[in-house]
């Protein structure tokens, strides 16, 4: 069986700061990581590969340095890595990204065998749209299973898959067919630590670098900025609230008095609240 998993290299947004004066992102020293949500999908892909005997191809679209992310994925035990990189892809929105990725997946399929399952993460932490997965599914005409919490069963002969899917207010049990695209829910597994052999292979194996042409993309107008219907017109920092919190003075006061003072301040600002709490609250 052949599984393709799409990962994205993202700046570790926990460490991103906005420059106070110029309002631009300060990237200096900000490490890049594999989008954390993608690791759940990768682990699931590796588990299926181990259980059903097959291959896992990791795919990313990004700048040349995204190779680091792929190499890391190889270190976790993936079998093959493809980096889709070309200046034509710069400025892609979700629609253009899913177009390029779907073309590349088709090419991966032609070259290394049609994938039975395509995995993506639930969402990225920088784009954060959760749309690229569904976009790829649509373009490749794959059945789409999003927010999958568990793959309950897989029957390769019958081409049948059963999954538990997170939906509003509960879990849906779905039966569907291969090939399909799965976006994996977070917290469903934990990425493994590759063995020494995995690490050695990862350090040595080649990451395939594909340009748009290599991936068989002939319509460049559907890529990058040109292929993106959305346009970012303005980037700005969130407005800061002018006044800071009014502090309740705590010096030399009993906790009890401080608490009373806080409650008084709360009800002064929200007069209706006292009534609501007293009559609907738990007290």
């Amino acid at each position, binding site marked *: 069986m052949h599984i393709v998993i799409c990962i994205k290299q993202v700046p570790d947004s926990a460490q991103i*700061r906005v420059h106070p004066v110029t309002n631009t*992102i300060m990237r200096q020293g900000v490490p*890049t990581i594999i989008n954390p949500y993608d690791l759940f999908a990768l682990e699931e892909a590796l588990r299926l590969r181990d259980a059903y005997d097959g291959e896992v191809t990791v795919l990313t679209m*990004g700048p040349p340095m995204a190779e680091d992310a792929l190499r890391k994925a190889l270190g976790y035990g993936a079998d093959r890595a493809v980096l889709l990189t070309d200046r034509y892809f*710069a400025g*892609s929105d*979700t*629609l253009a*990204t899913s177009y390029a990725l779907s073309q590349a997946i088709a090419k991966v399929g032609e070259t290394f065998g049609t994938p039975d399952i395509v995995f993506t993460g639930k969402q990225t*932490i*920088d*784009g*954060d*749209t*959760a*749309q690229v997965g*569904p*976009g790829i*599914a*649509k373009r490749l005409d794959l059945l*789409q*299973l*999003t927010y999958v919490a568990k793959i309950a069963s897989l029957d390769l002969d019958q081409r049948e898959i059963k999954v538990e899917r997170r*939906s*509003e*207010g*509960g879990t*849906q049990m779905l*039966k*569907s*067919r291969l090939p399909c695209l799965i976006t994996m829910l977070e*917290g469903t597994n934990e990425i493994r630590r590759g063995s020494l052999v995995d690490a050695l292979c990862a350090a040595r194996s080649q990451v395939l670098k594909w340009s748009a042409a290599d991936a068989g993309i002939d319509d460049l107008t559907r890529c990058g*900025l040109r292929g*993106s*219907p959305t*346009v*970012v*017109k*303005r*980037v700005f*920092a*969130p407005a800061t609230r002018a006044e*800071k*919190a*009014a502090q309740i003075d705590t010096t030399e006061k009993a906790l*009890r008095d*401080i608490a009373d003072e*806080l*409650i008084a*301040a*709360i009800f002064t*600002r929200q007069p209706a*609240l*006292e*009534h609501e*709490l*007293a009559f609907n*609250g*738990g*007290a």
Partner: protein
Amino acid sequence: MSTVNRETPRPAAGRAGIKKELPAHFKDYRHVWVFIELERGQVHPVSFELLGEGRKLADKLGVELAGVVIGPPGEATRPAVADAFAYGADLVYIVEAPLLADYRNEPFTKAMTDLVVTHKPEILLLGATTLGRDLAGSVATTLLTGLTADCTELDVDTDGSLAATRPTFGGSLLCTIYTLNYRPQMATVRPRVMPMPQRTDRPAGRVIRHKLSVPEDEIVTKVLGFLPDSQSANANLAYADVVVAGGLGLGSAENLQLVKNLARAIGAEHGCSRPLVQKGWMSADRQIGQTGKTIRPKLYIAAGISGAIQHRVGVEGADLIVAINTDPSAPIFDFAHLGIVTDAIRFLPALTEAFTRRLSPHNRDKLAS
């Protein structure tokens, strides 16, 4: 929205040349649509929040606001239709078919795209719920149009295009995104990001019905069952009037009891910051923030939470934010309304007690009179 690693985002100037004329075949796309999310007979409240926003956009554009209801024929969709009108819709489109009883991507995408192609809305809004996100991506890709996800602000520009603002880089920045040359302009909005509008009893408007002509056996994915979440009140967190939350400052899982005690005393929901979920101290559905729930309570009490941007974006809609933190320079004091620099572990029990005293039956009687 760019999803490729870019250098520092540039303001619009750098992309000035991009604006083109709207192609002629899109010129007759008009009106604002809101997808009314209906699952198992329940309308998701995010749909009302969207109707509130949609109403404003429609009024600015001088067009109509339509609700879109997709579901099984018969009674099941009736409350959704009534709600749509009550929250401001001028008309409602319904797509009905037995196979639309439970949400599945294939038939819902088909229903929505058919409707769009037939009736040509200029703006289509969906909730950024699991359902909405699943559907929106497929619909946008099918229609080859732009989609701005997780917006925090929607507006109409002077030239009538939708200006959709959303956080980027984990909330450190905001960006305003346009879909200039394609229609409809699609956007999703997370629950609780927009205020809940007033429900008004207005006469029902037009209802336009469609049938989905796809037989069940053409739909591959089958729903085998549904397991509702245990009623751990998690669903209520986003819509609670009062929320008490704890962060890493509480130091241990045991101390979370202090947060729960206070919450119980004042009839609040309890929540937490992300690290607590990662440590397994609280379940994921209690997480508040960018990757958790957005809340809009009347009162939010945060104990031992530093106020990182990812947390901030989830609570900023609260009417009154109270922060308890030992560090006077903690960022949470930048956006809280009331602050106390003190040890939450010692203070929470005192606060719980003081609330209980204040809200006691005795005082309640005084309040009532």
